[in-house]
């Protein structure tokens, strides 16, 4: 992926922030799944836990997916070297 016009360190920082966001989202999803497993092991109303997980996990994943889509889309949508605004 090109980083035309943007200092390389800033581009790496942008990529790192995207990765960090995925770590955050996957961490939350992992945590919810852990609690789901815990409720099953303890027979602690696993149905409620399943209900919450079905709603919560996709919301986090979708948020992260949208940000990634925007980041990649903006990088790909940049003008090529030497191209001028029409």
């Amino acid at each position, binding site marked *: 992926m090109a*980083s*035309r*016009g*943007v*200092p390389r360190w*800033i581009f790496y*920082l*942008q990529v790192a922030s995207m990765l960090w966001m995925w770590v955050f*989202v996957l961490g*939350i999803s992992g*945590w*919810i799944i852990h*609690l*789901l497993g*815990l*409720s099953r092991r303890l027979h*602690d*109303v696993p149905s*409620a*836990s399943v209900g*919450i*997980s079905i*709603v*919560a996990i996709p*919301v*986090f994943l*979708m*948020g992260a997916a*949208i*940000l990634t*889509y*925007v*980041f990649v*889309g*903006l*990088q*790909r*949508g*940049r*003008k090529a070297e030497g191209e001028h*605004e029409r």
Partner: protein
Amino acid sequence: MKPDAEFEDTDLLRSIEESGVGFRVASSLLMLVILGAWVIFSRQILQGLGVTGLNQPVAWGFYIVNFVFFIGISHAGTLISAILRLSQAEWRRPITRMAEVITVVVLAIGGFHPVLDLGRPERMLNIFTAGRLQSPLLWDVSSITAYFMASTVYLYIPMIPDIALLRDRGTRPRWLYTFLAWGWQGTPRQHAVLERAVSILMVLVIPIAVSVHTVISYIFAMTLQPGWHSTIFGPYFVVGAIFSGIAALLMVMIVLRRIFHLERYLKQIHFDYLSRLLLIMSLLWFYFTFSEYLTAFFGSEPSEMRVFFYKVTGPYAPFFWGMVICNFVIPVIILSFRRTRTIPGIFIASILVVIGMWLERLNIVVPSLANPRLELATGYYIPSLVEWAMFAGGIATFILGFVVFARFFPLISVWEIQEGRELSVAETSERLESYLPDPAPASSSTVEGGG
């Protein structure tokens, strides 16, 4: 984006490019208040919840009242902004950014309040290993985190073109704007990506926003506590949240319009439309409140009646009737008449609604705990200095959030205003024409003419 010589919206960048002593004084004072609050709060860290007014049976007080209050105000932003965008309300353009900032700032403040309410805050970490997802408190943790994430993304993505504008104007810190602009150059493909992302987000955030306050109501409604165990608590909380959110948004708009001289952008018509919404929400709030209290009163269940009379004629009567006056009586009078629906009138109504909604949260939390179903003596609650200090700290953090945001980012979306000027007039005319009935077919007019 227009070249600098033609750039008409320099007013919108003044707070960023010409910030000076005002910003430094305001932020220093606010930070002093926040620091003071934390110094006073350190007593609670050292000595525990005994330094608060909390006791048995009133185990929840200001912290939970403020938690519900701040999360309620957060509905100002993302929800209102998303609804206005989705309905293609053109007058939304100068409003949405401020609304979205309110959401992010108050969510961060409100979401932190349950931690303050813990006698041993470090034990919060136990939810990572041994949380119980069947508890409505943990539903709150999930839903508020999800809402915070969605709202932050929803604030950030439409800000990218404005951040790129600041980067291109060489505004400092330039590295920050370059980093946050994500390589935006305003190409058609980038515009398409941005619009698609905003379209998905605005549909996504509406159910999340509604679910957040519904879930908060479940903390109360899922218990068998008198005054809380109600089937309409979910929608009642959502209505209250939108109501207080609109009032907070109007307050913020009026104050910022004055401070940053935004009269060209925030016109009477914007306040007129939003104040009509506030009026509708006031009536809706009254309807829900009336239904809630009438049902409890008509049932005459002894423990419910103790809570009812505690609020209506007992120690909480000043707060209860204050709530009714602030949320319904005065706002309805002010907002119903064109003569009083002026900007100062709307400002007064909005302040009263914000106060009234805080009183509503107080009326929900404390009286039910003071009059438990068990045969216990009636409880009492007097907030301590620590709780008042943290309340002041919360409000100072809210104002500081806006001051800092205004220092670095435009409070009104510059690119959306420009888009409105360049495209929306033609687009709106075209849309308006599409609403109108099609011309009668030539043959039928001939028949009618013939008849």
